[in-house]
């Protein structure tokens, strides 16, 4: 007679070999969950008070924005034009030279490699002539496996307003529920990000990295604004290890005209050290660094001159990227 435990084993309703819960590498959703676990990102220096005040101020613009989005109650709309981050100068500020030194030390202590793949939150306005810009917040996750397979996932989220609808791009922009998958790409083994920029492994050393960035972003080796733009896009493809972090912050420290701005609490509540750089014709960048290891936390671009045609005024945020990993 068959043992009762064997009978029960055979009656297992959820198999490890087949079906949706079978054993396999993590899928995109599981990867995203791992990255989104609460307080994963530097909770020890979270400054919620600042974030709340940003949210409160941003709430004033929600009504105006909602009017541009059809069929959505104004109180429920999450996305609004982000206010520029605010930097506060203090005696505790850490200089860029000191951050470079710390990043170098961190790299010597733990020379980990850069990881292909990224996780970031970005905001960018959808602008049309004669219309108010609409801000489109999204979170992107890209991961690559050893066999060259991978996935890229883009989800509508706005960490400033968890649980509320988010605005999605489209003609016209419309609200979607938070967490809606905007795009999901899966790549078979062997692709290994070959269809992306920066698909080759980044080199060691600041000057070599600058030349590498210039391959995909011509001008990055001459123009500081191009260099910043190249770093911004490089970080959407790669998650730098300690050495690369040190190289990046070394490149930033060499930009003529970069100035300390003070301590900044970003939209995730992370506290970092801000540095400003203004470039012609009308852009100002705020780069937020982790003062301990030089990690780039955020890059924000604001406009310095009003443009009535697109209804933007001086100081408006034109793009914003927060690097989560």
């Amino acid at each position: 007679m068959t043992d009762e435990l064997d009978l029960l084993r055979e009656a297992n309703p959820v198999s490890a070999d087949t079906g949706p819960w079978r054993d396999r590498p993590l899928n995109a959703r599981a990867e995203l969950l791992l990255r989104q676990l609460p307080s994963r990102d530097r909770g020890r220096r979270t400054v919620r008070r600042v974030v709340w005040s940003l949210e409160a101020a941003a709430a004033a613009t929600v009504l105006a924005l909602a009017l541009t989005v059809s069929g959505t109650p104004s109180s429920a709309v999450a996305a609004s034009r982000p206010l520029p981050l605010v930097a506060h100068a203090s005696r505790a500020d850490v200089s860029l030279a000191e951050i470079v030194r710390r990043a170098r030390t961190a790299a010597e202590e733990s020379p980990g490699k850069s990881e292909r793949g990224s996780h970031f939150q970005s905001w960018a306005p959808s602008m049309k002539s004669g219309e108010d810009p609409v801000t489109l917040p999204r979170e992107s996750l890209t991961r690559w496996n050893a066999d060259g397979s991978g996935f890229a996932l883009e989800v509508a989220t706005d960490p400033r307003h968890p649980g509320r609808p988010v605005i999605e791009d489209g003609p016209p922009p419309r609200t979607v529920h938070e967490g809606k998958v905007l795009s999901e790409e899966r790549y078979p083994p062997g692709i290994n990000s070959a269809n992306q920029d920066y698909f080759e492994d980044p080199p060691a050393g600041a000057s070599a990295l600058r030349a590498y960035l210039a391959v995909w972003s011509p001008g990055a080796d001459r123009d500081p604004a191009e260099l910043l733009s190249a770093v911004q896009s490089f970080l959407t493809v790669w998650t730098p290890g300690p050495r690369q972090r040190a190289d990046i912050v070394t490149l930033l420290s060499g930009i003529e005209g970069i100035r300390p701005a003070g301590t900044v609490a970003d939209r995730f509540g992370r506290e970092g050290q801000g540095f400003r750089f203004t470039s012609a014709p009308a852009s100002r960048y705020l780069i937020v660094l982790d003062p301990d290891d030089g990690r780039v936390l955020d890059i924000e671009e604001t406009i310095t001159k009003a443009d009535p045609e697109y209804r933007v005024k001086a100081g408006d945020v034109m793009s914003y990227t927060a690097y989560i990993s």
Partner: protein
Amino acid sequence: MSTDDAFDDAYREHYWAVSRFVARRLDGQSWEVEEVVAEVFSVAWRRRAELPESPLPWLYGVARHCLANAVRGKGRYRRLLAKLGHYEVTREGRTVASPDAERPGSWVLEALSRLAEADQEVLRLTTWEELTVEELGIVLGCGRSAAAMRLHRARRRLREQIETLRRDDRVSVGCTSGEGDRAHSSDRAEKAHKDGHA
């Protein structure tokens, strides 16, 4: 290895096992399972300092609490647990209509559903999650000998229920075949379905 790294490793290694644990106990859609699994790992992340060297039984323990909270909150806990034994037979008659007529799933699940919830859980953990007696103790929060005793008693009660069903239905467990048996099983499935909603 840092605590965070250990957590990451545990997550990557056991995400699907925890998902199966939840799926076996939650009569819900995939997204509901994912929701509970997300809660399990959120709780585990907050308690990651307690993560043991062999984390899976510990994660199952966390999952038990999350699962109970999730379904209790909707007032469905008891009902779902009662229905659990009829999981397969209530899912479009999947087991009964299977071409593999010898599969004893519906019989055993029906017998299992007749046991007390504590007995059912001991048996599920042993067979479906394939835990050792020591691991069983970790999940249930008791010592090894207490776990062994609970398993021993639960096995005996399951055996009794199987014998009872066998006598009632005059069908050999593990030896069913032919249309007549399938018709019998279909009747049972319908009855079980009704019981599950009672």
